[in-house]
């Protein structure tokens, strides 16, 4: 079967790529688009390591077909920092040791960012349930939850 041509916007830049109709958005990101910050831990939507936003909606890119991005806006971990300036969540994750191996970190940051956009003052419980779709096997989540809540407090103060 011939490949499909897709035109989309990724991290604010117009992009085009070719994919198989069956390719997932994660396949396209990691393959033709060479954006390997989104990770594949399960390919079944259970681990969240491939979390991105599609028109500001948090999704597992392994559960979205690449062709579905046609005409839509994708954001990935590669677009989170503004040039050399880290997003406050990225900075806080570094300062608070909220990562160990780092394989879940891209997805964790994308999911946390999506949370703070809709809920700038989340409770601990809200953070924990929002991030329940992002598995981390290294940290026990303690420092991640603290980093998200601290970032939220700092962003509210600004």
């Amino acid at each position: 079967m011939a490949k499909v041509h897709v035109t989309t916007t990724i991290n604010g830049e117009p992009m085009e790529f070719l994919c198989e109709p069956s390719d997932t958005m994660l396949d396209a990101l990691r393959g033709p688009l060479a954006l390997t910050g989104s990770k594949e831990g399960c390919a079944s939507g259970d681990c969240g390591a491939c979390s991105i936003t599609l028109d500001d909606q948090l999704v597992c890119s392994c559960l979205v077909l690449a062709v579905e991005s046609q005409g839509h806006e994708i954001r990935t971990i590669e677009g989170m920092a503004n040039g050399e300036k880290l997003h406050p969540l990225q900075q806080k994750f570094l300062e608070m040791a909220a990562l160990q191996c780092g394989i879940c970190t891209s997805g964790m940051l994308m999911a946390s960012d999506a949370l703070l956009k809709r809920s700038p003052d989340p409770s601990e419980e809200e953070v924990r349930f929002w991030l329940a779709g992002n598995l981390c096997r290294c940290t026990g989540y303690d420092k991640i939850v603290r980093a998200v809540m601290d970032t939220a407090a700092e962003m509210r103060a600004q």
Partner: protein
Amino acid sequence: MNLVTNNKWIGQRTIRPDGMDKVTGRAQFAADTTMPGMIWGKVLRSPHPHARIKSIDTSKAEKLPGVKAVVTAKDIVDFTIEKGAVMLGIQDMRWMCRNVMARDKALFPGHPVAAVAATSEAIAAEACQLIEVDYEVLPWSIEIDDAIKPDAAILHEFNKFEGKPSNIAGRLEHKKGDLAEGFKKADIVIERTFTTRPVHQGYIEPHACLISVAPDGKTTIWSSSQGQFMVRAMTSMLTGIPQSDIRAIPAEIGGGFGGKTIVYLEPLATMLAKKSGRPVKMVMTREEVMRATGPTSGSKSTVKIGATKDGKITAAHGTFYLQAGAFPGSPIRGAAGCSFTPYDIPNLLSEGYDVVSNRSKVAAYRAPGAPIGAYAVECVMDEVAEALKMDPLDFRLKNAAKEGTKAAHGPVFPRIGFIETLEAAKNSDHYKAPLGKLQGRGVASGFWFNAGGESSAQVNITEDGNVVVTTGHPDIGGSRAGIANICAELLGIDYKRVSVIIGDTQTIGFSNLTGGSRVLFASSIVVTQSTEKIITTLRERAAKIWEIDPEAVKWEQGAAHPVSPNAGQFEPLTLKELAEKAPAMGGPIGAGVQLNTTGADGGFGTHVCDVEVDVDLGIARVTRYTAVQDVGRAIHPGYVEGQLQGGVAQGIGWALNEEYIYTKEGKVDNPGFLDYRMPVCSDLPMLDCIMVEVPNPKHPQGVKGVGEVPLVPVMAAVANAIYNALGKRFYALPMSPPKVLEVLEAPTQQAAE
């Protein structure tokens, strides 16, 4: 001992050197690399738990357009059974060669039988389906009780136990005193039997590699593992390519927990690359990870402890049967060797049995074997304390190992901090906090050996006066941050001037696995010695410039100074100035040290766990948790806490939910993250840490391994808490909702003797 005091960097929560790459998506993990001309490899796996492979016909697969190479066991070096063991570390290559590719028999569902490389993943997968394997399906044994019964299906006919073919592949024991006499002196004796299920390490990054083999045999391996030197050695032994021709480059590793201390894909991808002349990439699916890698053992343990009325343990006996999976090698050393070690027990027998079964070969998992043994021992400790009407921490304090105690596995302890962990737990706010209805509190302790072993480091001063440190251990939990702190401290410079990287096998000297809680312990010794050599060089050079004796020069705050005004009046010479003068002063400044490090003291921890049980749904939730550990010296407290918290989370999963479930056909029925339920963020509370620092006198900075101890006490702490909440004991893991409901509805207690 040369403990650094008044530290500027040691003990600071610095930003980890690899952090920026990991928060921006730039970090390169195993599956993140490509090469020009790259093709894809896929593995054909056995659908049967046990089958003789009568023939394999790959001709149809080879003819499929796009297929570039096919390999089977014929392409992997055979370490024959008859020639005896060929060991690489703790792995016997006779089993490794059969584990990476089934030779005469397939021994578990998921066992590789052939591999294909093709121009796309889809073509490689399609080609696998065209391979015809003629299997003679055999009866199988998975559970321990099935594997050790008299008429069990035998995996390895050549393996004999007590003179007969058997699935018991080994036994070890640790013994002290006279067991019968010891139990005679006891006023109370409690004996219980426990079972645990196999659980997976659960790293989020599946195994992956990219391998290129040049026509002259020069091989480049890009993969993530807990040891690039292990990858090189095993690949060399299984393919016949000499180690000098294999450059194994360590990618960032997305979790391992012991599960990445052996190879699965690398030998297959190497042979596919060699045969096809193309770089080959292989990436496991999650299902392949769950079916064919790890997990740790399922187990059956019996523990008997006797004590006097005043709470002194007089004797203890533990028997630990551990499931090895398809090949010998379950962690009985950890189960039998660690479980009783927190206590000074005069009469002890601790036995381990290694049981093979038709399940994937066991891989190391965080303090291998120790959590399994400690679960049984620490639950019985709780029962004995209760029978004696003693506080469980007081009972442990009364019997705690201390300096001078001889452990049954050999060593006499130096100064250790176990008692301090018990006291800190007892004095914690957590231990004193009130509990509500259906809430309970449990405690448990644990020990892990910790390891030293081979490490290499090279420290180079750059021409502009900064520092590059290269070590040979993949950084799995923040070791680069610890190394940067130590090197900056010794040199008296900002830690940001120290760049720490992990070398590949051809650029740094041999360094053993990232495992055994050894990395920061061992690598900081070689980094310290290298840095001290550099400081000697820097002092010599300053002495030469000042025309004074090197002994009259000291190194402080990143510069050479005269030791006193008597030595002469000179402006300090900074690292930057000395680096700039290096070409005229004898050349580049750098030093390397390679050592087989010793002096790794064992680690001890004590945990306090609160649970609340929903008796309608059978859900036990951990509501508060405190992990106390003697960490030696916390070089980077953030990542020490991270180790404690991560270990606790894994233990809570093991205690409450995680298990391999098998179908009637002997296949894993839950090979994905939806049904193999690891703790998610909403399952856990904050995980409090109390770091007790009793410095290791045999280490320049006082470091003790910290990574593995935190998993050891957890399951018992949770089980004891559930008992405290419900008044009912559980003797099997996981204590998942259906099993909690079962016990609540049909109470069955094991009787005390």
